[in-house]
């Protein structure tokens, strides 16, 4: 996960991620695709970074596409939401 120190994490414009945790079934595909930004705690608690660093852009896109229930929404100012 990126931390506060990461310049791209708090300030806009940056990547924005939001997971619909009602839809999420903790399949963990996103965790394999973007391990710095998604992880599972306990049995099924998905923890994610809502403002990933720009260098994780490709991972985040892979995670979004990999999610079997399309629970991951991404806004990328470089590409449009």
């Amino acid at each position, binding site marked *: *996960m990126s*931390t*506060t120190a990461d310049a791209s*994490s*708090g*300030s*806009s414009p940056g990547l*924005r*991620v*939001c997971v*619909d*945790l*009602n839809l*999420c*079934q*903790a399949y963990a595909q996103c965790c394999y695709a973007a391990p710095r930004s998604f992880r599972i*705690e*306990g*049995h*099924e*608690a998905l*923890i994610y*970074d*809502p*403002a990933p660093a720009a260098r994780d852009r490709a991972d985040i896109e892979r995670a979004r596409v990999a999610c079997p229930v399309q629970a991951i*929404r*991404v*806004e990328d100012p470089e590409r*449009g*939401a």
Partner: protein
Amino acid sequence: MASGPTVERVIVAGAGLAALRGAEAMREAGFSGPLTIVGDEPYRPYDRPPLSKHVLTGETPADATTLPSSLGADVAWILGSAATRLDRAARTLHLADGRALPYDRLLIATGTRARPWPNPHEGRLSGVFTLRGRDDAAALRAALAARPRRVLVIGGGFIGCEVASLCRQLGLRATLVESGPTLLSRVLGSAVGGFIGAIHEGRGVDLRCGSEVEWLEGEDGRLVRAHLTDGTRIEADVAVIALGALRNTEWLDGSGLSADPGGVDCDAVGYVLDRDGQPDLRIAAAGDVARFPHPLYGGRRAALEHWSHAVAQGIHAGRLLAGVKPEAPYGALPTFWSTQGDVVVKSAGLTTGADAVAFTQGEPGSGRFVAVYGREGRCVAAVSVDSARWLPAHAELVATAAPFPPHGAAADRPARGITILAPGFA
């Protein structure tokens, strides 16, 4: 209205999740006219669920929660200024900064705020927090990072459970005081709430159910301890007041709309109602602030404080105001999740009025199970604890109002039979 001859002006009052998803839906439905979003907080819409979770551990900075959005530069934002009065005759929204904004269509999405501690003097003690907004979460995070001796959580609803369990994850002592017989007894009943309480007790939360905080004692303006009505004292330098929410409807006083602290009333389509019960076809409401007849529950009025509801009703209201005729009354199946430490509680449906509950998956004592709620012989809600993969099948039972107790695919124990309990709502 996009096809109408004159350009219509749309205002969204409130700048939270429902407002954002509503405004996006208007644009997606083809509305290209002037769109203004008014919010009293100085921030673009952000996500609240992380505020009682990983913002408090310090992993997610409070300002990293800004929501993804597809809105472009053709939206005017007025942030840091509250809507203070609605003049429906003049079709004008008045703001705290003195501005008066004319509108042709209005979306009301002003949400809720945390119910404050009843004694304002005690509520102002340093170390006493409520949790609704980003600034609240940042302040509470700073207080937790200073390693308080003990954190007192007042109120055993979802947010109280989340905060207390996170404190344990941080290695802090945590006491949770709840007046009901168990955690979550108002929403889930004491049968299910008791099992969830056992999970948290097992992780070291000092649980005091059936207790009430009488007063908070300060020294030099700082919280030092709480006094319970039974005389017990709890030494704590941080207290989190988690006593539920109040709907932000005061600014509608004098508008002639049917609104009170329980919400602003809508019809089945989504238009707001005036005091005579007539819809105002220029105004819709969505999210935590809206109270509406839910078609799945025989038209009983409900105001739901759920993330997914703010999204779904926001989209519904946005399309409605953009002139799209709804195919059906708004009636998305209510769904909810709560991450409590690393335990996930999820629900589908509404437990309100349930007269029975049955455990259909797992063993409640093991901390992983599914419970189904019945009302007059029909499934009305399901709750899963660390068993989310079973929830969709149960949600289907609820959506179709299947007979209760359920049998077949969803339940893992037809042979043993299903024990049916009273839900035990407090």
